[in-house]
């Protein structure tokens, strides 16, 4: 399987069905979750730079795990996949793979951000 380093524009960044299911269609809650996700992911992505600089691979693995979970909770499947590869790269302490996963995750995050902005 080829390692994707870029984003996948053919797939929708946020599966609204997942978000609707999680919120039972509550519009306010959807917006609240979107904000929670964006703030948390932003913080975690920033922490990644620091972790990479200090070669804290276990921290990178944990951040990858957490971002994978929150992306999946919000229905951001492609971002969740990118962060899953970050978690795995962190576990393998593979710096090249970590950098590639961060690039892919960041690009996916930007797409998710745009999609969630349309909610408001």
């Amino acid at each position, binding site marked *: 399987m080829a390692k994707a380093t870029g984003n996948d524009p053919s797939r929708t960044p946020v599966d609204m069905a997942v978000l609707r299911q999680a919120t039972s269609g509550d519009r306010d809650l959807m917006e609240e979750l979107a904000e929670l996700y964006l703030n*948390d992911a932003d913080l975690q992505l920033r922490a990644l730079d620091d972790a990479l600089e200090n070669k804290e691979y276990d921290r990178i693995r944990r951040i990858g795990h957490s971002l994978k979970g929150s992306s999946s909770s919000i229905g951001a499947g492609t971002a969740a996949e990118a962060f899953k590869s970050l978690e795995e790269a962190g576990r393998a302490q593979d710096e090249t793979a970590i950098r590639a996963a961060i690039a892919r995750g960041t690009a996916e995050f930007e797409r998710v951000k745009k999609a969630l902005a349309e909610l408001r």
Partner: protein
Amino acid sequence: MRVLIAEDEPVARRVAQKAVQGFGHEVEIVEDGLAAWKRLEEAPFDVLISDWLMPGLDGLELCRRVRARGNRPYCYVILLTARRAKEDLVAGIMAGADDFVSKPFDHAVLRARLHTAERVTRLEQDLEGKVGELQKALDEVKTLRGLLPICMYCKSIHESQDVWRRIESYVSEHSQAEFTHSICPDCYEKEVKPQLDELRRSKRPEPGA
């Protein structure tokens, strides 16, 4: 029910909190295992819904600690997990988990699991109430046991250093038995009858008076 939710991931935490509140339960949330343990030590919860992987104290360890507390009100533990491997399931059960819900969770499934939790915690509470009643009853039953030093003649009981108690008062105090006095036929013959005879004799007019 009082439900504690331990989840480090903010979106899942909020989704779980909203859902469980929506089912009509009282919900508290914490962000990691250590905070969950602290809350569980402070207050009783009927159900703990915990993420598996959390910083500090993970769901498995939290579960083990809850079970190691032993004789507390029962806390039903549901582990939230994306894990489906057989080994994980076994590890969760061995740690003391009652049930598992996979993430991201389905509302109907979580609701149904909480319904089971309610049934089980009610059974546990009933049982606990019954055990408490039994214990109370047992505490009230006083028993006399051991070696009692008793006087060979007057049958007083040697209670402490210089204290000898009449057997009636000793037994009354150390058991639930109470005394009602009467006279046995042997004692009637031996004690009462001679006294009555004596009385009758003393009342008979003296010859020649």
